[in-house]
């Protein structure tokens, strides 16, 4: 009987493509974010608000990931900025290879901020590096304040937390303080923003911060 030592990462193919993407983003001075959340937290609404607020100041491109339809890309197209839709056909997360193919369709010289909107899912996208500078996790107040504790990997792996739908707090049992405390217990370095894509509250602060990250 013999034992062979292997020591290989299961997701090594994904990681290698993500590293290539990271180098390309850096080379083209693109700041990139990977937007993750459960379905219906307001990822696309936040993308729309961000474009409306900042596209006169910075050059934005969007990669949309969905299980089916190009509805999100249609919403973004209305703003006349580059957008590529990835349809995963059942796949529960974006992988680096899919992002690479979409990225090829974008004129990367004309982009300063690349927003990658992942498939709505707080589990699987946590494990897949897309070459992004930063994961931005959105939780909406209607989901409840316990979400960080239930999905710790996503909150641990993210750099920014956006608490969306704060206009609905009076109608939910969600405590913003408890939500923040839960998230910060998992990841104290999370930068937290509170927004409402309906009233526009907090969008300026988020966009100012995002604009400050653009690579000059």
């Amino acid at each position, binding site marked *: *009987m*013999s*034992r*062979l*030592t*292997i*020591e*290989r*990462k*299961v*997701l*090594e*193919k994904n990681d290698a493509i993500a590293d290539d993407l990271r180098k390309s983003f850096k080379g083209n001075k693109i700041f990139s974010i990977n937007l993750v959340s459960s379905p219906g937290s307001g990822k696309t609404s936040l993308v729309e608000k961000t474009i409306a607020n900042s596209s006169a100041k910075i050059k934005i491109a969007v990669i949309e990931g969905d299980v089916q339809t190009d509805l999100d890309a249609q919403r973004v197209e209305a703003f006349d900025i580059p957008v590529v839709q990835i349809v995963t056909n059942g*796949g*529960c*997360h974006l992988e680096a290879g899919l992002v690479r193919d979409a990225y090829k369709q974008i004129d990367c010289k004309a982009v300063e901020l690349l927003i990658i909107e992942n498939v709505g899912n707080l*589990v*699987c996208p*946590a*494990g897949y590096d897309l070459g992004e500078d930063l994961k931005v996790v959105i939780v909406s107040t209607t989901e409840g304040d316990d979400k960080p*504790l239930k999905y*710790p*990997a996503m909150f*641990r792996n993210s750099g920014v937390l956006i608490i969306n739908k704060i206009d609905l707090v009076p109608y939910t049992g969600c405590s913003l303080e408890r939500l923040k405390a839960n998230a*910060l*217990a*998992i*990841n*104290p370095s999370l930068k937290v923003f509170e927004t409402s894509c309906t009233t526009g509250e907090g969008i300026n602060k988020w966009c100012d911060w995002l604009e400050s990250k653009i690579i000059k």
Partner: protein
Amino acid sequence: MHELSVANEIINIANQYIPAGNKSDILSVKVEIGKLSNILTDSLEFCYEALVGDTKLKGSKLIIEEIPVTVACEDCGETTIIENVIFQCKYCESTKVKLVTGNELKVTELEIND
């Protein structure tokens, strides 16, 4: 999450390590799965068994070594095993901690009956 594609990737990697002309049974493939990697081990075992029948690894067992979430404290240097998802040093209560283990998703060993 996507245990089926993870099982498939494990089989692909392990296959590459079977010596050329091997006639012996492959007994097991060992993997390390970190508790933060969002893998359901029962589901991974099920998927492995479902996929392995058509490969050179037929009949082999998947041995899963679950790796706890551990962090190193940047203030006092101690290591803490995190069991309740609160990322804090249990010695000095600092929250300035660095993840040491828990994200593993690795193929580590192949056992051959030769």
